[in-house]
């Protein structure tokens, strides 16, 4: 299928003088066509190695990689296509803009190699530069541009030859915070507009959540969870993923019963709580539940009692502008809660909090370890 990348049982180890590092531990993955898949994980998790193996810049030890219908690397079949024959585009972390060429020269390069006629090169380069809003910059030396502009030159160069798939290696990490946010939005717009298949590597959770159609979270050379941004943020069953993707309060709990198919009633430091849970947890099972700090809402003391409410004491407080970051002591546990900052709060206050049952989730004990 057009643009689909599939990776089977890919293994890659790096041998240095002191030790052997397993960068990829039998990774199997296939990307959805015309969608953006993000490989997310902390540094050293193997995400960049996986991307470079797909690009052909790194040779795996075993396994198979195909792009579209074509096997580009296979140990068993003895196939190893060099990067230039894999029909991909790539945006590098350093942008890798060639300093001795103009913007036009950089972007035209992939087409020149493909022996595209001159007039067509000019036409297509102009079109793509207009798309990335760099029309009129053709004759500038590429290194004289700002970081954000260089980044767009890199994107234009990766797109111009209409590759089957485009690879991004932390393309925004060299931009400053403000620019990163706006570029993120632009990039997402370009890619959805062009309906192009992309694999995107980042260690930034927010970037992954905002830009992707699909996320694969990696750890220690393996993919630990795969799903849509919503799945990953709200419905993960993996404690590593939960912890990595945002801040979380983990509490130990005991299953007391089921309230509907996907919701369990558990007993924990917050009292008896209804939370979303994987099905099939027996009564009495010890589980860990987690909540996000931003999931707590303050309830006025006068309102009637509802499900999933509890009372606690503010033990420490930070004013962070958009919210109070409050540590609440409840039933012997401490939870971090982000509370609306316009409500006056001080240390020692008693607060009544509510948490939605969808915002609170029991982890599958099978996946802990």
């Amino acid at each position, binding site marked *: 299928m057009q643009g689909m990348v599939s990776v089977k049982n890919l293994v890659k180890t790096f041998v240095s003088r002191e030790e052997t590092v397993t960068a990829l531990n039998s990774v199997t993955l296939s990307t959805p066509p015309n969608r953006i898949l993000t490989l997310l994980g902390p540094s050293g998790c193997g995400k960049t190695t996986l991307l470079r193996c797909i690009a052909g810049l790194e040779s795996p030890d075993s396994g198979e990689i195909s792009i579209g219908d074509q096997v580009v690397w296979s140990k068993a079949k003895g196939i190893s296509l060099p990067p230039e024959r894999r029909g991909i*585009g790539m945006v590098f972390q350093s942008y890798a803009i060639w300093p001795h060429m103009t913007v036009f020269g950089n972007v035209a390069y992939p087409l020149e190699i493909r022996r595209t006629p001159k007039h067509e090169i000019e036409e297509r380069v102009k079109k793509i530069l207009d798309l990335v809003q760099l029309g009129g910059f053709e004759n500038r030396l590429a290194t004289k541009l700002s970081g954000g502009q260089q980044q767009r030159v890199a994107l234009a160069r990766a797109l111009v030859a209409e590759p089957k798939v485009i690879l991004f290696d932390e393309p925004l990490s060299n931009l400053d915070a403000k620019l990163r946010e706006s570029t993120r939005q632009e990039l997402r717009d370009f890619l959805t507009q062009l309906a192009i298949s992309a694999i995107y590597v980042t260690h930034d959770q927010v970037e992954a959540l905002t830009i992707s159609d699909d996320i694969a979270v990696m750890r220690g050379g393996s993919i630990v969870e795969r799903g849509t941004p919503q799945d990953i943020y709200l419905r993960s069953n993996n404690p590593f993923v939960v912890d990595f993707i945002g801040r979380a309060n983990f509490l130990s709990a005991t299953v007391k019963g089921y309230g509907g198919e996907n919701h369990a009633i558990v007993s924990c430091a917050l009292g008896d709580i209804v939370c979303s849970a994987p099905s099939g947890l027996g009564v009495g099972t010890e589980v860990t539940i987690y909540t996000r700090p931003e999931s707590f809402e303050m309830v006025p003391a006068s309102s009637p009692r509802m499900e999933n409410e509890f009372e606690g004491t503010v033990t420490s407080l930070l004013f962070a502008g958009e919210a109070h970051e409050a540590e609440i002591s409840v039933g012997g546990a401490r939870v971090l809660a982000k509370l609306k900052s316009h409500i006056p709060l001080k240390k020692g206050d008693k607060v009544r909090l509510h948490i939605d049952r969808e915002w609170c989730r029991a982890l599958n004990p099978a996946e802990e370890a």
Partner: protein
Amino acid sequence: MLNHRSSRRFPLVAFLIIIVSALTIGPVVMLVIGSFSEGIGAIGKFTTGKYVAAYTDPSLPKTLLNTIVFTLGTACFSTALGGLLAYLSVRTDIPFKGLFRVLPIVPMMIPHVLFAAAWIALINPTNGMLNLFLRNLFGFSRGPFNIYSLAGMIFLEGMLDLPVTYLVISPAMYSFDTTLEEASRVSGASNLYTLRRITLPILKPAFLATFTLAIIRSLAAFAVPSMVGMPGRIHVLTTHVYRIISVGWSPDYGRAAAIGLIVLAASIILVYLYRHLIAESSQYVTVTGKGYRPIVVELGRARRPLFILCVVLFCFLVVIPLATLVYMSFLPYSMVPSARAVSMMSLRNWRTVLANSVIIRALKNSTFLAVIGATLGILLSIFVAYVIVKVKSRGSALIESLSFLSFSFPGMIIGVGFMWFLVRTPLYATIWGLLVAYVGTYLPYGVRPLRSAFMQIDEELEESARVFGASFLRALKDIVVPLLAPGVVSAWILMACMFIRELSVSVVLSRPGTEVLTVEIMKLANDGLWGQVAALGIIMIGLSTALVLVANMLRVPLSHVDQ
């Protein structure tokens, strides 16, 4: 605040400007005046006769042509080899990379005079040992190699410049962002196309800079042209000047100055070109992100032949010349290694050399110049580097330009300038005259490493000492000096070794009484006393090594002055 600081240091800056200009511009001015003067005893008597004589010399066109072939040939040879070695050591999986770290210190080990002497002993056309050996083997009646040729000169000078070209190209290779190549591969270009369109164009300024530097060095070269070129009657500009002042019954320093000025002008232009190219090449350094591990180019089947090539080069550079020197030093005359040769080995050359009172004096003089000269030179360099880095004013910028200027001066020519300069002073024909000329000529080699050492010392360290009550000199002594000590010692070693192997300035200024080792070695070589050349050469290498070892022992206590 700034004005206050610079005004407090104004006397220091002014004093340094005077000293440094006297050392660098002084001889140039004297060279110009000298070229328009009747003679060394009649300075200031204006004449253009020297120019007429110098530029109507019928041997000049041939000399110019030789110089062009020699410098361009050397630059091509040494840049190509230096580039290849730098690429292999930085970017590929060539084995024994530690070997390449030896390369930059090779010229400190074997001075040019000795390198040339060893190779002459091996492949001179009459009794070169390698030639004799090959003749016996294949029954040639003569040859097969003749070092007394332009090719021989280019071969020797190219090998001698190889460590320098390697040193200049390597950083460019190191800082090369390999994702630039990866981006090209991913764009659809093959390895070879990438090399042609991306790698080489980006490295072009670095290669051109190296090439320019090699031209500057070979233009100033004297050891190889005098020892190899002159016997073969192949004269280049430096030996041409040397002949004007040393051959015949009356040395003509005016004519030498008139010719010398064009060499000097060419060198200065080339140095500015070099600086420009280096700046351009550093502009291409675009590494911004944290670098992924650089891809190591796998050489595959070419790995073994390329490694063998490197080993051969190292043998040519170090092993063969050193072995030849040691072997020759025990033999009465040149002969191919054999049982007979072994039976004839003796210490005679060593005894003869050490019994020669002139050589003993040269040994003392060279040691004096290295120890005292390097100490004074480094002391001056410390002040100059300090002012360049820490005092930002128009005066310090002037000092920077001045101290960099003599980097471009060919020793031979500036030696003639110093001749005109010193002859008006009581220093003329004394060891101190040589010392002043050495320091003036080699000042950049002291200032440059110290400048980078100073740049690494944060200004606040010194400022805090001032805040706590230390005077400027006290802060310098207590804070800056200990931190600087390792850099100072390295610079001292470099300068001392350069002074020991200095030839081209000495050959102009050395007089009976102020003989130095290199000049004496050259004289012994001119007389064909290869055994004595070798023995004295090994003594000279031993002297440099001893200085390096002693200086290194001083490095530790200098860094801990407070105990």
